[in-house]
């Protein structure tokens, strides 16, 4: 049982989005930029894309969870620490070690990843906006946890079709946390995220079997 209602959660997003203006617009811009770079760039822009994702995880952990969500949920400090860890892993693996190459090659996995990223970077915020009281109720990728996790899973599916397991573990875990929250809170648009998490698990397991020995 969660210690808050959906009403309180979206009121929190309303307060949060207002308090951090114009960061939601900036987050929207950078989400679109990450997607565009992944799909259209001729050169490898992986480090930029991963830097954007890392910044999103670090922001969401430090600002959303630790500064805002902690007022509603006593588990928020743990969530914040996990999100910050994910941000640091993206910095280390993707930017410093350069172990990921994100690009769109033909294939169902890759286009599924693009689709997932589009859902969480663009469609979910619009859905929240339309079903809520306004744009301030929307959960934007790079500054809200579920949207950030979904966008990250989508973009990591573009990494040569083999996302590094240690980079998808936390986003996948978060999809299940969101799913567990979606049911008692009755937020139907969040039921999709654990489905995506399960798909990502299968994809990750498939990629383990495919790795050359």
């Amino acid at each position, binding site marked *: *049982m*969660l*210690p*808050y*209602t959906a*009403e*309180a959660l979206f*009121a*929190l997003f*309303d*307060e949060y989005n207002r308090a951090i203006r114009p960061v939601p617009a900036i987050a929207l811009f950078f989400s679109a930029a990450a997607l565009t770079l992944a799909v259209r760039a001729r050169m490898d822009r992986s480090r930029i894309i991963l830097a954007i994702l890392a910044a999103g995880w670090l922001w969401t952990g430090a600002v959303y969870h630790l500064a*805002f969500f902690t*007022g*509603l*949920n*006593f588990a928020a400090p743990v969530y914040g620490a996990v999100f910050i860890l994910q941000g640091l892993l993206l910095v280390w693996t993707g930017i410093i070690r350069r172990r990921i190459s994100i690009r769109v090659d033909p294939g169902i996995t890759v286009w599924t990843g693009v689709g997932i990223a589009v859902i969480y970077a663009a469609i979910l915020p619009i859905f929240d906006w339309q079903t809520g009281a306004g744009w301030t109720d929307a959960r934007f990728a790079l500054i809200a946890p579920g949207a950030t996790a979904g966008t990250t899973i989508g973009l990591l599916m573009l990494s040569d079709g083999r996302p590094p397991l240690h980079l998808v573990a936390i986003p996948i875990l978060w999809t299940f946390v969101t799913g567990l929250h979606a049911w008692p809170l009755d937020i139907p648009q969040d039921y999709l995220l654990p489905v995506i998490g399960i798909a990502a698990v299968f994809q990750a397991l498939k990629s383990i079997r495919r790795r050359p020995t």
Partner: protein
Amino acid sequence: MPPNRPPNGPPDLPPDLRPDGPVDLPGTSRRAFVAAASAASVAAALGIPASHASTSLSAPDLPATGAAIRRAIPNSGEEVPVIGMGSWITFNVGDSSRLRDARADVLKVFLERGSRVIDSSPMYGSSEDVIGYCLDKIGRRNELFGATKVWTPLDGHGVSQMAESRKLWGVEAFDLMQIHNLVNWEGHLDTLAADKAAGRMRYIGITTSHGSRHGEMERVIADQRIEAVQFTYNMIDRAAERRLLPMAAERGHAVVINRPFRRGELFRRFAKHPLPAWSAEIDCTGWAQFFLKFVVSHPAVTCAIPATSRVDHMVENMGALYGGLPDAALRARMSKYVESL
């Protein structure tokens, strides 16, 4: 033996209006006729914006006649109203001024209708902060019987946590400080005793919401110097009748009951059925009052603490504070009726 009745007779009370709309009660056409005001009128009478009251029902704005039902804490003789208010989930609304003001309206009804006992915990997110905000806004802090909890596995953290709770509520002392869900009760009892000696609380208690922990609670009740216990008891969860309630009564403890509606499940299961006509003998006009009066009519119970975020539901809950209470025979009849549904 007729049900207990206060000398001034029962108030006329609104038909049940939760959770799925009006339920016509047999034999209540007179009450329905007498019931004239709408929920908006209740709100207006209390200076509450109509948008914060339910607009999907009509609840009469009839003053509660007769005295509020009170029960004495056996060890001290202090009387408290038998219906209080919990704040788990319902008052955890963060910094939203809109939602905080709506909760202030709920609390205003609660106090206006004669109740006093408010229960919270640091575990409940921003609930304590919101309660403090509401009390600041309403300005009736002196009427409060404040009950909160210490919730930390760390001995040393308890003192600062309780100090933080006092600050959030805006009080110098709590009436009741409880060890939440038995967490580190061994470590906290001495701290609480010291705080009590310093005048920072009046009663010490322990709580659980889990039937699986009743055994441990029994041991604490038997062996430790506490004055209050809080656990779950309702028309379905009646395990406490076997040992906890008699033990608490034997030791003169205050008994605070959480989850009297089983987190709303009692409404989901039973509110679609008609309230029995004989519930009018104890002035029930809705299922909330039926469920609550069953709970508080147990002789060992001091107070039940239903939680709500709605003004109309608070009005219904407060209806259980007035009128008759079932005696043993009627309690059995109530139980049998619910089992038959």
